[in-house]
Protein backbone atom coordinates (compact mmCIF):
# COMPACT_ATOMS: atom_id res chain seq x y z
CA UNK A 1 0.00 0.00 0.00
CA UNK A 2 1.32 3.43 -0.83
CA UNK A 3 0.51 6.56 1.02
CA UNK A 4 2.10 9.89 1.60
CA UNK A 5 2.04 12.11 4.64
CA UNK A 6 -0.25 14.46 2.74
CA UNK A 7 -3.00 11.83 2.82
CA UNK A 8 -3.29 12.37 6.55
CA UNK A 9 -3.43 16.19 6.51
CA UNK A 10 -6.68 18.14 6.28
CA UNK A 11 -7.09 21.93 6.16
CA UNK A 12 -10.35 23.83 6.17
CA UNK A 13 -12.81 25.75 8.25
CA UNK A 14 -13.58 24.28 11.61
CA UNK A 15 -17.04 23.71 13.04
CA UNK A 16 -17.02 23.62 16.83
CA UNK A 17 -19.54 21.67 18.92
CA UNK A 18 -19.73 21.20 22.70
CA UNK A 19 -19.78 18.17 25.00
CA UNK A 20 -22.13 15.19 24.74
CA UNK A 21 -23.01 15.46 21.05
CA UNK A 22 -25.51 12.61 20.69
CA UNK A 23 -24.99 9.98 17.98
CA UNK A 24 -28.69 9.52 17.22
CA UNK A 25 -30.68 12.71 16.82
CA UNK A 26 -27.87 15.29 16.99
CA UNK A 27 -25.60 13.76 14.35
CA UNK A 28 -28.14 11.88 12.25
CA UNK A 29 -31.96 11.62 12.36
CA UNK A 30 -32.91 8.32 14.00
CA UNK A 31 -35.09 7.15 11.12
CA UNK A 32 -31.99 6.60 8.98
CA UNK A 33 -30.72 4.25 11.69
CA UNK A 34 -33.98 2.32 11.70
CA UNK A 35 -33.89 2.14 7.89
CA UNK A 36 -30.25 0.89 8.07
CA UNK A 37 -29.34 3.48 5.43
CA UNK A 38 -25.57 3.37 4.97
CA UNK A 39 -24.91 5.36 1.79
CA UNK A 40 -22.75 8.41 2.53
CA UNK A 41 -24.20 10.25 -0.47
CA UNK A 42 -27.69 10.00 1.04
CA UNK A 43 -26.74 10.57 4.68
CA UNK A 44 -24.53 13.61 4.03
CA UNK A 45 -27.54 15.89 3.50
CA UNK A 46 -28.63 15.18 7.08
CA UNK A 47 -25.26 15.40 8.81
CA UNK A 48 -25.39 17.11 12.23
CA UNK A 49 -28.79 18.69 11.46
CA UNK A 50 -30.01 17.96 14.98
CA UNK A 51 -27.62 20.69 16.13
CA UNK A 52 -27.48 22.91 13.04
CA UNK A 53 -30.10 22.42 10.30
CA UNK A 54 -27.93 24.36 7.82
CA UNK A 55 -24.78 22.36 8.50
CA UNK A 56 -24.85 20.13 5.38
CA UNK A 57 -25.08 23.21 3.14
CA UNK A 58 -22.40 25.18 5.00
CA UNK A 59 -19.73 22.53 5.46
CA UNK A 60 -17.28 21.85 2.63
CA UNK A 61 -14.97 18.89 1.95
CA UNK A 62 -11.80 19.22 3.99
CA UNK A 63 -13.57 21.05 6.83
CA UNK A 64 -13.05 19.86 10.37
CA UNK A 65 -15.60 19.03 13.04
CA UNK A 66 -14.17 19.82 16.48
CA UNK A 67 -16.12 18.74 19.54
CA UNK A 68 -15.88 18.30 23.29
CA UNK A 69 -16.15 15.28 25.55
CA UNK A 70 -18.15 12.14 24.74
CA UNK A 71 -18.62 12.93 21.04
CA UNK A 72 -21.18 10.58 19.43
CA UNK A 73 -22.38 9.34 22.80
CA UNK A 74 -25.48 7.19 23.25
CA UNK A 75 -26.27 4.16 21.14
CA UNK A 76 -23.44 3.87 18.65
CA UNK A 77 -24.84 3.71 15.12
CA UNK A 78 -22.50 4.05 12.18
CA UNK A 79 -24.86 6.23 10.12
CA UNK A 80 -23.61 9.34 11.95
CA UNK A 81 -20.11 8.73 10.64
CA UNK A 82 -21.13 7.77 7.12
CA UNK A 83 -22.82 11.20 7.02
CA UNK A 84 -19.55 12.92 8.02
CA UNK A 85 -17.74 10.89 5.40
CA UNK A 86 -20.29 11.88 2.77
CA UNK A 87 -19.47 15.55 3.40
CA UNK A 88 -15.74 14.83 3.29
CA UNK A 89 -15.12 15.92 6.88
CA UNK A 90 -12.60 14.87 9.49
CA UNK A 91 -12.91 15.08 13.27
CA UNK A 92 -10.98 16.15 16.37
CA UNK A 93 -12.64 15.56 19.75
CA UNK A 94 -11.82 15.75 23.45
CA UNK A 95 -13.14 12.23 24.01
CA UNK A 96 -15.26 9.61 22.26
CA UNK A 97 -16.85 6.38 23.56
CA UNK A 98 -15.08 3.26 22.31
CA UNK A 99 -18.02 2.00 20.26
CA UNK A 100 -18.32 5.29 18.38
CA UNK A 101 -14.56 5.42 17.79
CA UNK A 102 -14.85 1.99 16.19
CA UNK A 103 -17.70 3.26 13.98
CA UNK A 104 -15.61 6.29 12.98
CA UNK A 105 -12.76 4.03 11.88
CA UNK A 106 -15.14 1.61 10.15
CA UNK A 107 -16.72 4.48 8.22
CA UNK A 108 -13.31 5.75 7.11
CA UNK A 109 -13.39 9.14 8.85
CA UNK A 110 -10.06 10.59 10.04
CA UNK A 111 -10.09 11.41 13.74
CA UNK A 112 -7.93 12.75 16.55
CA UNK A 113 -9.71 11.11 19.49
CA UNK A 114 -7.99 12.53 22.60
CA UNK A 115 -7.66 16.32 22.24
CA UNK A 116 -8.09 17.48 25.84
CA UNK A 117 -9.32 21.09 25.95
CA UNK A 118 -9.35 21.54 22.16
CA UNK A 119 -12.74 23.26 22.03
CA UNK A 120 -11.37 26.22 24.00
CA UNK A 121 -8.62 26.82 21.42
CA UNK A 122 -10.79 27.18 18.31
CA UNK A 123 -13.90 29.04 17.16
CA UNK A 124 -16.24 28.03 14.39
CA UNK A 125 -15.06 29.45 11.08
CA UNK A 126 -11.36 29.58 11.90
CA UNK A 127 -8.81 28.18 9.45
CA UNK A 128 -7.50 24.97 10.99
CA UNK A 129 -5.11 22.31 9.75
CA UNK A 130 -4.65 18.88 11.31
CA UNK A 131 -1.96 16.33 10.60
CA UNK A 132 -3.68 13.17 11.78
CA UNK A 133 -0.48 11.19 11.70
CA UNK A 134 1.54 13.47 13.97
CA UNK A 135 -1.43 14.78 15.95
CA UNK A 136 -0.51 18.40 15.27
CA UNK A 137 -3.42 20.84 15.10
CA UNK A 138 -2.56 24.26 13.69
CA UNK A 139 -4.96 27.17 14.01
CA UNK A 140 -3.82 29.40 11.12
CA UNK A 141 -6.30 32.12 12.06
CA UNK A 142 -4.69 32.49 15.49
CA UNK A 143 -1.19 31.35 14.59
CA UNK A 144 -1.25 28.75 17.34
CA UNK A 145 -0.61 25.01 17.38
CA UNK A 146 -1.07 22.07 19.75
CA UNK A 147 -0.02 18.47 19.44
CA UNK A 148 -2.28 15.64 20.63
CA UNK A 149 -1.82 11.89 20.70
CA UNK A 150 -2.62 10.59 17.22
CA UNK A 151 -4.57 7.46 16.44
CA UNK A 152 -2.45 4.32 16.07
CA UNK A 153 -0.89 3.94 12.65
CA UNK A 154 -2.67 0.60 12.05
CA UNK A 155 -6.04 2.30 12.52
CA UNK A 156 -5.08 5.30 10.38
CA UNK A 157 -4.30 2.82 7.62
CA UNK A 158 -7.79 1.30 7.90
CA UNK A 159 -9.32 4.78 7.64
CA UNK A 160 -7.08 5.75 4.74
CA UNK A 161 -8.03 2.58 2.93
CA UNK A 162 -11.66 3.69 3.15
CA UNK A 163 -12.87 2.02 6.34
CA UNK A 164 -13.82 -1.45 7.45
CA UNK A 165 -15.23 -2.87 4.21
CA UNK A 166 -12.16 -1.98 2.17
CA UNK A 167 -9.87 -3.20 4.95
CA UNK A 168 -11.77 -6.50 5.14
CA UNK A 169 -11.54 -6.96 1.35
CA UNK A 170 -7.80 -6.29 1.49
CA UNK A 171 -7.30 -8.93 4.18
CA UNK A 172 -9.42 -11.42 2.22
CA UNK A 173 -7.40 -10.79 -0.95
CA UNK A 174 -4.17 -11.19 0.97
CA UNK A 175 -5.36 -14.55 2.29
CA UNK A 176 -6.42 -15.76 -1.14
CA UNK A 177 -3.09 -14.86 -2.71
CA UNK A 178 -1.11 -16.28 0.20
Amino acid at each position, binding site marked *: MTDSSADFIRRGRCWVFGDNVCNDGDMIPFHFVLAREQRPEILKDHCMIGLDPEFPRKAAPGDLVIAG*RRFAQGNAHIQAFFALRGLGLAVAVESIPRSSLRNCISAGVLILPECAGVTSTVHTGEDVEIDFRTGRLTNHTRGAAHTYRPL*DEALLQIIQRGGWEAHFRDRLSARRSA
Partner: protein
Amino acid sequence: MSSQTLTQKILSAKMERDVREGEIIFPEPDLVVVHDWYSANAGRTLRQFGVERLYAPDKVMFVTDHEPIAVSAESAAKQAEIRDIARQFAIGHHFDVGRGGHGHLFPVEAGFVTPGMFVEAYDTHVPNYGAVGALGFPMLNEIVEVMALGSVWIRVPGTIQIRLRGRLTPGVLIRDFAQKLIADLDADLVNYTVVEFSGPAMEHISVDERFTLCNTPIEIGAKSAITEPDDVVREYLSERVQCDIELPRSDADAPFVHAAEYDLTTIEPYVAVPPIPDRVVPISAVAGRPIDHAFVGSCASGSLNDLREAARYLIGRRIDPRVRLFITPGTQAILRAAIAQGLIEIFSAAGAIITAPGCGPCAGGRIGALGRGEVSINTGTRNDPGRLGARDSEIYLASPATVAVSAITGRIADPREFARGAS
Protein backbone atom coordinates in the same frame (compact mmCIF):
# COMPACT_ATOMS: atom_id res chain seq x y z
CA MET B 1 8.23 -10.03 32.16
CA SER B 2 6.65 -6.95 33.70
CA SER B 3 3.59 -7.28 35.91
CA GLN B 4 0.31 -7.68 34.05
CA THR B 5 -3.43 -7.55 34.56
CA LEU B 6 -5.47 -10.69 33.98
CA THR B 7 -6.69 -9.20 30.70
CA GLN B 8 -3.14 -8.50 29.52
CA LYS B 9 -2.15 -12.05 30.45
CA ILE B 10 -5.01 -13.55 28.44
CA LEU B 11 -4.22 -11.41 25.39
CA SER B 12 -0.46 -11.99 25.76
CA ALA B 13 -1.07 -15.74 25.74
CA LYS B 14 -3.06 -15.38 22.52
CA MET B 15 -0.31 -13.31 20.87
CA GLU B 16 2.49 -15.49 22.30
CA ARG B 17 4.28 -12.33 23.50
CA ASP B 18 3.74 -9.64 26.12
CA VAL B 19 1.20 -7.06 25.00
CA ARG B 20 0.97 -3.56 26.44
CA GLU B 21 -2.05 -1.37 27.08
CA GLY B 22 -3.11 0.66 24.04
CA GLU B 23 -1.42 -1.61 21.51
CA ILE B 24 -3.39 -2.67 18.41
CA ILE B 25 -3.41 -6.45 18.04
CA PHE B 26 -5.24 -9.16 16.07
CA PRO B 27 -5.69 -11.98 18.64
CA GLU B 28 -7.41 -15.20 17.57
CA PRO B 29 -10.33 -16.04 19.86
CA ASP B 30 -10.90 -19.52 21.29
CA LEU B 31 -14.62 -19.25 20.58
CA VAL B 32 -16.78 -17.05 18.31
CA VAL B 33 -20.46 -16.68 19.20
CA VAL B 34 -23.11 -15.30 16.85
CA HIS B 35 -26.69 -14.71 17.97
CA ASP B 36 -29.85 -15.46 16.00
CA TRP B 37 -30.78 -11.87 15.22
CA TYR B 38 -27.44 -11.40 13.46
CA SER B 39 -26.58 -14.86 12.07
CA ALA B 40 -28.52 -14.31 8.83
CA ASN B 41 -26.86 -10.93 8.24
CA ALA B 42 -23.47 -12.51 8.95
CA GLY B 43 -24.16 -15.17 6.32
CA ARG B 44 -25.29 -12.59 3.78
CA THR B 45 -22.20 -10.45 4.41
CA LEU B 46 -19.88 -13.45 4.06
CA ARG B 47 -21.51 -14.36 0.74
CA GLN B 48 -21.40 -10.72 -0.42
CA PHE B 49 -17.65 -10.62 0.22
CA GLY B 50 -17.16 -13.92 -1.57
CA VAL B 51 -16.11 -15.87 1.49
CA GLU B 52 -16.54 -19.61 0.85
CA ARG B 53 -15.03 -21.11 3.96
CA LEU B 54 -14.46 -19.84 7.47
CA TYR B 55 -11.08 -19.57 9.15
CA ALA B 56 -11.95 -21.98 11.95
CA PRO B 57 -15.59 -23.11 11.64
CA ASP B 58 -15.22 -25.55 14.53
CA LYS B 59 -14.69 -22.58 16.87
CA VAL B 60 -17.85 -20.80 15.70
CA MET B 61 -21.12 -21.16 17.62
CA PHE B 62 -24.58 -20.06 16.49
CA VAL B 63 -27.05 -19.54 19.34
CA THR B 64 -30.82 -19.04 19.30
CA ASP B 65 -31.89 -16.78 22.15
CA HIS B 66 -33.33 -13.46 20.93
CA GLU B 67 -36.32 -15.05 19.22
CA PRO B 68 -36.39 -18.80 19.92
CA ILE B 69 -40.10 -18.96 19.16
CA ALA B 70 -40.57 -17.40 15.74
CA VAL B 71 -43.45 -14.93 16.04
CA SER B 72 -44.07 -14.47 12.30
CA ALA B 73 -43.62 -16.16 8.94
CA GLU B 74 -40.68 -13.81 8.32
CA SER B 75 -39.04 -14.98 11.55
CA ALA B 76 -39.53 -18.62 10.61
CA ALA B 77 -37.96 -17.91 7.21
CA LYS B 78 -35.00 -16.26 8.92
CA GLN B 79 -34.52 -19.30 11.14
CA ALA B 80 -34.52 -21.49 8.03
CA GLU B 81 -31.95 -19.18 6.42
CA ILE B 82 -29.73 -19.49 9.52
CA ARG B 83 -29.88 -23.32 9.30
CA ASP B 84 -28.82 -23.04 5.66
CA ILE B 85 -25.92 -20.72 6.55
CA ALA B 86 -24.83 -23.04 9.37
CA ARG B 87 -24.69 -25.93 6.89
CA GLN B 88 -22.96 -23.95 4.12
CA PHE B 89 -20.21 -22.66 6.40
CA ALA B 90 -19.95 -25.86 8.47
CA ILE B 91 -20.57 -23.95 11.71
CA GLY B 92 -19.10 -26.11 14.47
CA HIS B 93 -21.82 -25.59 17.05
CA HIS B 94 -25.34 -24.64 16.04
CA PHE B 95 -27.68 -24.45 19.01
CA ASP B 96 -31.04 -24.18 17.31
CA VAL B 97 -34.50 -23.57 18.78
CA GLY B 98 -34.86 -25.29 22.13
CA ARG B 99 -31.18 -26.22 22.36
CA GLY B 100 -28.90 -24.51 24.82
CA GLY B 101 -30.71 -21.26 25.51
CA HIS B 102 -29.17 -17.86 26.18
CA GLY B 103 -25.84 -17.49 24.39
CA HIS B 104 -24.43 -15.39 27.22
CA LEU B 105 -25.24 -18.11 29.77
CA PHE B 106 -25.37 -21.69 28.44
CA PRO B 107 -21.90 -21.83 26.83
CA VAL B 108 -20.52 -21.31 30.35
CA GLU B 109 -23.02 -23.69 31.92
CA ALA B 110 -22.19 -26.35 29.29
CA GLY B 111 -18.43 -26.09 29.79
CA PHE B 112 -17.52 -24.36 26.51
CA VAL B 113 -15.94 -21.45 28.39
CA THR B 114 -13.04 -21.79 30.84
CA PRO B 115 -10.79 -19.39 32.77
CA GLY B 116 -8.27 -17.56 30.59
CA MET B 117 -10.18 -18.07 27.34
CA PHE B 118 -10.60 -15.21 24.87
CA VAL B 119 -14.02 -15.08 23.21
CA GLU B 120 -15.42 -12.72 20.60
CA ALA B 121 -19.15 -12.46 19.93
CA TYR B 122 -21.59 -10.39 17.94
CA ASP B 123 -23.73 -9.39 20.91
CA THR B 124 -22.85 -6.76 23.52
CA HIS B 125 -23.27 -8.82 26.70
CA VAL B 126 -20.58 -11.44 26.06
CA PRO B 127 -18.63 -9.96 29.01
CA ASN B 128 -20.87 -12.36 30.98
CA TYR B 129 -18.17 -14.99 30.33
CA GLY B 130 -16.05 -13.07 32.81
CA ALA B 131 -18.08 -14.98 35.41
CA VAL B 132 -15.57 -17.84 35.02
CA GLY B 133 -12.51 -15.68 34.32
CA ALA B 134 -12.79 -15.68 30.52
CA LEU B 135 -12.43 -12.48 28.49
CA GLY B 136 -15.38 -11.78 26.17
CA PHE B 137 -15.30 -8.94 23.63
CA PRO B 138 -18.37 -7.88 21.62
CA MET B 139 -17.51 -7.04 17.99
CA LEU B 140 -20.93 -6.34 16.40
CA ASN B 141 -20.85 -6.58 12.57
CA GLU B 142 -17.06 -6.97 12.47
CA ILE B 143 -17.58 -10.48 13.85
CA VAL B 144 -17.77 -11.58 10.19
CA GLU B 145 -14.11 -10.59 9.81
CA VAL B 146 -13.32 -12.92 12.72
CA MET B 147 -15.40 -15.68 11.11
CA ALA B 148 -13.66 -15.29 7.76
CA LEU B 149 -10.10 -14.46 8.81
CA GLY B 150 -9.81 -15.59 12.42
CA SER B 151 -9.27 -12.18 14.00
CA VAL B 152 -10.10 -8.48 13.97
CA TRP B 153 -8.24 -5.51 15.41
CA ILE B 154 -8.59 -4.69 19.07
CA ARG B 155 -6.78 -2.22 21.27
CA VAL B 156 -5.40 -3.79 24.45
CA PRO B 157 -7.60 -2.24 27.15
CA GLY B 158 -6.64 -1.02 30.58
CA THR B 159 -8.24 -2.55 33.66
CA ILE B 160 -10.28 -1.03 36.48
CA GLN B 161 -10.02 -3.10 39.63
CA ILE B 162 -13.08 -3.42 41.87
CA ARG B 163 -12.37 -5.12 45.19
CA LEU B 164 -15.37 -6.49 47.09
CA ARG B 165 -15.60 -7.30 50.79
CA GLY B 166 -18.43 -7.98 53.24
CA ARG B 167 -21.74 -9.81 52.70
CA LEU B 168 -24.99 -8.63 51.17
CA THR B 169 -27.77 -8.18 53.73
CA PRO B 170 -31.17 -9.96 53.45
CA GLY B 171 -33.33 -8.63 50.62
CA VAL B 172 -30.32 -7.19 48.79
CA LEU B 173 -28.92 -9.01 45.75
CA ILE B 174 -25.79 -8.70 43.65
CA ARG B 175 -27.90 -6.94 40.99
CA ASP B 176 -28.36 -4.05 43.41
CA PHE B 177 -24.60 -3.69 43.69
CA ALA B 178 -24.07 -4.11 39.93
CA GLN B 179 -26.44 -1.20 39.27
CA LYS B 180 -24.96 0.96 42.01
CA LEU B 181 -21.48 0.35 40.61
CA ILE B 182 -22.18 1.68 37.12
CA ALA B 183 -23.91 4.71 38.60
CA ASP B 184 -20.81 5.43 40.72
CA LEU B 185 -18.11 4.94 38.10
CA ASP B 186 -17.12 7.81 35.80
CA ALA B 187 -18.04 6.79 32.25
CA ASP B 188 -15.00 8.62 30.84
CA LEU B 189 -12.77 6.57 33.13
CA VAL B 190 -14.49 3.28 32.29
CA ASN B 191 -14.45 3.92 28.53
CA TYR B 192 -12.67 1.04 26.79
CA THR B 193 -11.48 -0.63 30.00
CA VAL B 194 -12.09 -4.08 31.42
CA VAL B 195 -13.72 -3.99 34.87
CA GLU B 196 -12.17 -6.72 37.02
CA PHE B 197 -13.78 -7.99 40.22
CA SER B 198 -11.82 -9.58 43.05
CA GLY B 199 -11.49 -9.44 46.82
CA PRO B 200 -12.44 -11.38 49.93
CA ALA B 201 -16.20 -11.24 49.21
CA MET B 202 -15.77 -13.33 46.07
CA GLU B 203 -15.72 -16.60 47.99
CA HIS B 204 -19.41 -15.98 48.78
CA ILE B 205 -20.38 -14.92 45.25
CA SER B 206 -21.58 -17.76 43.02
CA VAL B 207 -20.94 -18.05 39.28
CA ASP B 208 -24.64 -17.25 38.75
CA GLU B 209 -24.15 -13.97 40.60
CA ARG B 210 -20.91 -13.28 38.73
CA PHE B 211 -22.86 -13.23 35.45
CA THR B 212 -24.76 -10.25 36.85
CA LEU B 213 -21.58 -8.53 38.07
CA CYS B 214 -19.97 -8.82 34.65
CA ASN B 215 -23.10 -7.84 32.74
CA THR B 216 -23.59 -4.17 33.69
CA PRO B 217 -20.24 -2.34 33.11
CA ILE B 218 -20.63 -2.38 29.34
CA GLU B 219 -23.68 -0.12 29.74
CA ILE B 220 -21.34 2.77 30.60
CA GLY B 221 -18.76 2.01 27.94
CA ALA B 222 -16.53 -0.73 29.35
CA LYS B 223 -15.09 -3.07 26.75
CA SER B 224 -15.62 -6.06 28.99
CA ALA B 225 -15.70 -7.31 32.57
CA ILE B 226 -14.08 -10.23 34.30
CA THR B 227 -13.89 -11.85 37.72
CA GLU B 228 -10.70 -13.23 39.15
CA PRO B 229 -11.23 -17.00 38.82
CA ASP B 230 -10.96 -18.85 42.12
CA ASP B 231 -12.07 -22.02 43.88
CA VAL B 232 -15.73 -21.08 43.36
CA VAL B 233 -15.10 -21.24 39.61
CA ARG B 234 -12.98 -24.36 39.86
CA GLU B 235 -15.74 -26.16 41.74
CA TYR B 236 -18.42 -24.91 39.31
CA LEU B 237 -16.44 -26.16 36.32
CA SER B 238 -15.24 -29.42 37.84
CA GLU B 239 -18.39 -31.26 36.74
CA ARG B 240 -18.62 -29.44 33.40
CA VAL B 241 -15.19 -29.72 31.78
CA GLN B 242 -12.68 -32.53 31.44
CA CYS B 243 -9.48 -30.51 31.11
CA ASP B 244 -7.35 -29.13 33.92
CA ILE B 245 -8.62 -25.81 35.17
CA GLU B 246 -6.03 -23.09 35.60
CA LEU B 247 -6.80 -19.95 37.54
CA PRO B 248 -4.92 -17.01 35.98
CA ARG B 249 -5.04 -13.74 37.90
CA SER B 250 -3.68 -10.22 37.82
CA ASP B 251 -0.27 -9.67 39.37
CA ALA B 252 -0.42 -7.92 42.74
CA ASP B 253 1.36 -4.88 41.30
CA ALA B 254 -0.43 -4.94 37.93
CA PRO B 255 -0.92 -1.53 36.29
CA PHE B 256 -4.62 -0.86 37.01
CA VAL B 257 -5.89 2.44 35.61
CA HIS B 258 -8.17 2.83 38.61
CA ALA B 259 -9.03 0.85 41.72
CA ALA B 260 -11.99 1.01 44.09
CA GLU B 261 -13.27 -1.07 46.97
CA TYR B 262 -16.83 -1.70 48.10
CA ASP B 263 -18.26 -3.17 51.29
CA LEU B 264 -21.29 -5.20 50.18
CA THR B 265 -22.78 -4.86 53.68
CA THR B 266 -23.56 -1.21 52.88
CA ILE B 267 -25.50 -1.95 49.68
CA GLU B 268 -29.28 -1.44 49.66
CA PRO B 269 -31.83 -2.17 46.91
CA TYR B 270 -31.31 0.17 43.94
CA VAL B 271 -33.53 0.85 40.96
CA ALA B 272 -32.40 2.20 37.56
CA VAL B 273 -34.95 4.76 36.42
CA PRO B 274 -35.67 5.78 32.80
CA PRO B 275 -34.04 6.40 30.41
CA ILE B 276 -30.56 4.90 31.05
CA PRO B 277 -29.30 1.96 33.13
CA ASP B 278 -26.85 4.07 35.12
CA ARG B 279 -29.46 6.53 36.36
CA VAL B 280 -29.80 4.68 39.65
CA VAL B 281 -31.69 5.66 42.81
CA PRO B 282 -32.25 4.00 46.20
CA ILE B 283 -35.53 2.12 46.15
CA SER B 284 -37.08 4.57 48.61
CA ALA B 285 -37.04 7.22 45.84
CA VAL B 286 -39.44 5.25 43.61
CA ALA B 287 -41.28 2.91 46.02
CA GLY B 288 -45.05 3.07 45.56
CA ARG B 289 -44.97 3.76 41.79
CA PRO B 290 -47.78 1.64 40.22
CA ILE B 291 -46.66 -0.94 37.65
CA ASP B 292 -48.37 -2.86 34.84
CA HIS B 293 -45.64 -5.25 33.81
CA ALA B 294 -42.82 -7.18 35.47
CA PHE B 295 -40.18 -9.53 34.15
CA VAL B 296 -37.44 -11.72 35.64
CA GLY B 297 -34.83 -12.98 33.17
CA SER B 298 -32.29 -11.74 30.56
CA CYS B 299 -28.54 -12.28 30.37
CA ALA B 300 -28.18 -9.96 33.38
CA SER B 301 -30.48 -11.90 35.70
CA GLY B 302 -31.68 -15.12 34.08
CA SER B 303 -29.76 -17.66 36.17
CA LEU B 304 -31.20 -20.34 38.42
CA ASN B 305 -30.13 -18.24 41.41
CA ASP B 306 -32.13 -15.28 40.06
CA LEU B 307 -35.25 -17.45 39.65
CA ARG B 308 -34.77 -18.84 43.14
CA GLU B 309 -34.51 -15.35 44.63
CA ALA B 310 -37.73 -14.27 42.91
CA ALA B 311 -39.50 -17.46 43.98
CA ARG B 312 -38.61 -16.89 47.65
CA TYR B 313 -41.07 -14.00 47.72
CA LEU B 314 -43.70 -15.49 45.43
CA ILE B 315 -44.13 -18.76 47.30
CA GLY B 316 -47.68 -18.96 48.59
CA ARG B 317 -48.56 -15.51 47.21
CA ARG B 318 -50.35 -14.22 44.11
CA ILE B 319 -49.30 -11.25 42.03
CA ASP B 320 -51.45 -8.15 41.89
CA PRO B 321 -54.38 -8.61 39.46
CA ARG B 322 -53.33 -5.51 37.49
CA VAL B 323 -49.84 -6.87 36.85
CA ARG B 324 -48.55 -9.36 34.30
CA LEU B 325 -45.32 -11.09 35.31
CA PHE B 326 -43.02 -12.85 32.83
CA ILE B 327 -40.42 -15.35 33.97
CA THR B 328 -37.70 -16.32 31.48
CA PRO B 329 -35.27 -19.06 32.52
CA GLY B 330 -31.97 -18.26 30.81
CA THR B 331 -31.33 -21.74 29.47
CA GLN B 332 -32.92 -25.11 28.88
CA ALA B 333 -30.93 -26.53 31.80
CA ILE B 334 -32.08 -23.71 34.10
CA LEU B 335 -35.68 -24.43 33.10
CA ARG B 336 -35.23 -28.12 33.94
CA ALA B 337 -33.63 -27.27 37.30
CA ALA B 338 -36.39 -24.76 38.07
CA ILE B 339 -38.99 -27.46 37.42
CA ALA B 340 -37.11 -29.98 39.57
CA GLN B 341 -36.80 -27.48 42.43
CA GLY B 342 -40.49 -26.53 42.30
CA LEU B 343 -39.85 -22.93 41.22
CA ILE B 344 -41.99 -23.14 38.09
CA GLU B 345 -44.91 -24.36 40.21
CA ILE B 346 -44.46 -21.37 42.52
CA PHE B 347 -44.39 -18.92 39.61
CA SER B 348 -47.35 -20.51 37.90
CA ALA B 349 -49.44 -20.58 41.10
CA ALA B 350 -48.58 -16.92 41.71
CA GLY B 351 -50.05 -15.96 38.31
CA ALA B 352 -46.81 -15.52 36.36
CA ILE B 353 -46.30 -16.76 32.81
CA ILE B 354 -43.18 -18.74 31.93
CA THR B 355 -41.56 -18.02 28.56
CA ALA B 356 -39.16 -20.02 26.42
CA PRO B 357 -35.53 -19.96 27.61
CA GLY B 358 -33.46 -17.15 26.06
CA CYS B 359 -33.56 -13.36 26.27
CA GLY B 360 -37.31 -13.16 26.93
CA PRO B 361 -38.98 -9.73 26.61
CA CYS B 362 -35.58 -7.98 26.94
CA ALA B 363 -34.87 -8.71 23.26
CA GLY B 364 -36.65 -5.59 22.09
CA GLY B 365 -40.06 -6.53 23.47
CA ARG B 366 -40.78 -8.93 20.60
CA ILE B 367 -42.68 -10.95 23.20
CA GLY B 368 -44.32 -9.57 26.34
CA ALA B 369 -44.18 -5.98 25.09
CA LEU B 370 -45.31 -2.79 26.82
CA GLY B 371 -48.26 -0.76 25.58
CA ARG B 372 -48.57 3.03 25.54
CA GLY B 373 -48.01 4.67 28.90
CA GLU B 374 -47.38 1.39 30.68
CA VAL B 375 -44.80 0.93 33.43
CA SER B 376 -42.53 -2.08 33.84
CA ILE B 377 -40.11 -3.12 36.51
CA ASN B 378 -37.78 -5.84 35.32
CA THR B 379 -34.33 -7.41 35.41
CA GLY B 380 -33.46 -6.68 31.77
CA THR B 381 -30.26 -5.02 30.65
CA ARG B 382 -31.50 -1.66 29.42
CA ASN B 383 -34.32 0.83 29.93
CA ASP B 384 -34.08 3.04 26.83
CA PRO B 385 -37.39 4.54 25.71
CA GLY B 386 -39.17 1.99 23.52
CA ARG B 387 -36.88 -0.87 24.48
CA LEU B 388 -39.87 -3.09 25.33
CA GLY B 389 -42.44 -1.66 22.94
CA ALA B 390 -44.26 1.67 23.19
CA ARG B 391 -41.87 4.60 23.19
CA ASP B 392 -43.73 6.38 25.98
CA SER B 393 -43.70 3.35 28.29
CA GLU B 394 -41.37 3.44 31.30
CA ILE B 395 -38.85 0.81 32.34
CA TYR B 396 -37.36 0.49 35.83
CA LEU B 397 -34.53 -2.02 36.29
CA ALA B 398 -34.09 -3.85 39.57
CA SER B 399 -33.12 -7.13 41.25
CA PRO B 400 -35.27 -10.27 40.93
CA ALA B 401 -36.32 -9.78 44.58
CA THR B 402 -37.48 -6.21 43.98
CA VAL B 403 -39.30 -7.25 40.79
CA ALA B 404 -41.05 -10.12 42.59
CA VAL B 405 -42.33 -8.04 45.52
CA SER B 406 -43.36 -5.24 43.15
CA ALA B 407 -45.40 -7.74 41.11
CA ILE B 408 -47.10 -8.88 44.31
CA THR B 409 -48.01 -5.39 45.49
CA GLY B 410 -48.67 -3.84 42.06
CA ARG B 411 -46.30 -1.04 42.98
CA ILE B 412 -42.53 -0.72 43.18
CA ALA B 413 -41.75 -2.24 46.57
CA ASP B 414 -38.78 -2.87 48.86
CA PRO B 415 -38.00 -6.58 49.34
CA ARG B 416 -36.54 -5.89 52.79
CA GLU B 417 -40.08 -5.21 53.99
CA PHE B 418 -41.24 -8.65 52.89
CA ALA B 419 -40.90 -11.87 54.80
CA ARG B 420 -39.12 -14.38 52.64
CA GLY B 421 -40.59 -17.80 52.08
CA ALA B 422 -38.98 -21.03 53.16
CA SER B 423 -37.91 -22.26 49.74
